[in-house]
C-alpha cells in the first residue's frame, strides 16, 4: 500500500489546497470512525460492523484505492456475512494500514496532530 499526495492532487485537478483541507477533515474524522468499527467488532454486532466498516471505507476511499480500502471492504463483508471470527485479524491489519496512511499524510501535511 502506498499513498502519495500526488495521487490525490491529480484526482482533484491539481488543487493542493483542497488536498490539505481534505486531509485535515480525514484526520479529524477517522479516529471516531475507527472506534465505531472496534466497538462493533468487540460487541459481536455483525450489522453494526458492516455499517461502521462501510463508513470508514467511504472516508478512506477518498484517498486510496488499495490497502486500507480493500481491508475495510473485507471487514464490511465479514460483517455482512456474520463472519466475526475474521473481524479481529482484519481489524488489526486495517489499523496498521491506516497508521501508515496517516503517517504519510502527516509527512505531507507537516501538521502536528493527534491520532486515534
Amino acid at each position, binding site marked *: 500500500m502506498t499513498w502519495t499526495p500526488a495521487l490525490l492532487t491529480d484526482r482533484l485537478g491539481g*488543487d493542493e489546497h*483542497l488536498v490539505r483541507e*481534505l486531509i485535515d477533515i480525514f484526520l479529524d474524522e477517522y479516529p471516531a470512525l475507527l472506534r465505531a468499527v472496534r466497538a462493533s467488532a468487540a460487541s459481536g454486532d455483525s450489522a453494526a460492523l458492516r455499517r461502521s466498516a462501510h463508513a470508514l471505507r467511504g472516508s478512506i476511499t*477518498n484517498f486510496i484505492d488499495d490497502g486500507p480500502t480493500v481491508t475495510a471492504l473485507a471487514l464490511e463483508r465479514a460483517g455482512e456475512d456474520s463472519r466475526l471470527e475474521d473481524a479481529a485479524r482484519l481489524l488489526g491489519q486495517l489499523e496498521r494500514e491506516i497508521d501508515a496512511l496517516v503517517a504519510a499524510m502527516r509527512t505531507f501535511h507537516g501538521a502536528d496532530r493527534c491520532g486515534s
Partner: protein
Amino acid sequence: MRVLIADDDAVLRHALKKHLASWKYTSVMASDGKQAWKVLQSPDPPPLAVVDWNMPGIDGVDLCREIRATPSLATMYLILLTGNQDQKVAGLESGADDYITKPFSWDELRARLHIGSRIVGLQQTLAARVDELQATLAHVKRLSGLLPICAYCKRIRNNQDYWMQVEQYLAEHSEAEFSHGICPECLQTQLSFDES
C-alpha cells in the same frame, strides 16, 4: 442552481462542496438521510440532489422513494452515489434519475450534474409555460351554449333572468369592446324619420 448534497462522509462532502462551487452550483449540505429529508421539506427545496446510498437515518434508496412519493418533489432530479456496482438497477428503480459509483471521476460528476441541471431547467420552463397558459385561460371569457334572445328587441336573457342589451351582454361575457356608429341603412331610416 442549488444542489442538495446528502452524504455521511465529511471528506467527500467537503470535496463535493468545493467542486460544485467551482462549477457554479450552490450546495445545500446534509450529513444523513433525516437531515436531507428536512431540507427537502423546506418551502423552496433544491431541484437537484446528489444522494449517497448508505447513510444513517434514512438511506439513499428510501430517500429516493420518499421523494418520488411526494408530489411537490416529483420533478426533482436525483443522482445516487454508491460504492457498489451491483446496486445500479435497484437504485434506479427506487426513483433515482442517475447513478454514480464511488470512487468517481470529477469530470464524470460534472457532466452528469450538467445533464441534471439541463433537465431541471427544461422542466422549470415547461412548468412556467403551463402556469402562464392556466393564468391566461382563467382570464379568457368564452361565449358558448344556447342564448335566449328576444325575437323583437334582440335583448339577451342572462342567468339572473334579466334581459340585457346585446352589447352589454357581450361586453360582460367576452373580450369584445364596442364603438358605437350608425350603419348606412339605419342612417337612411333615421334621416327620413327625422325629415318627416
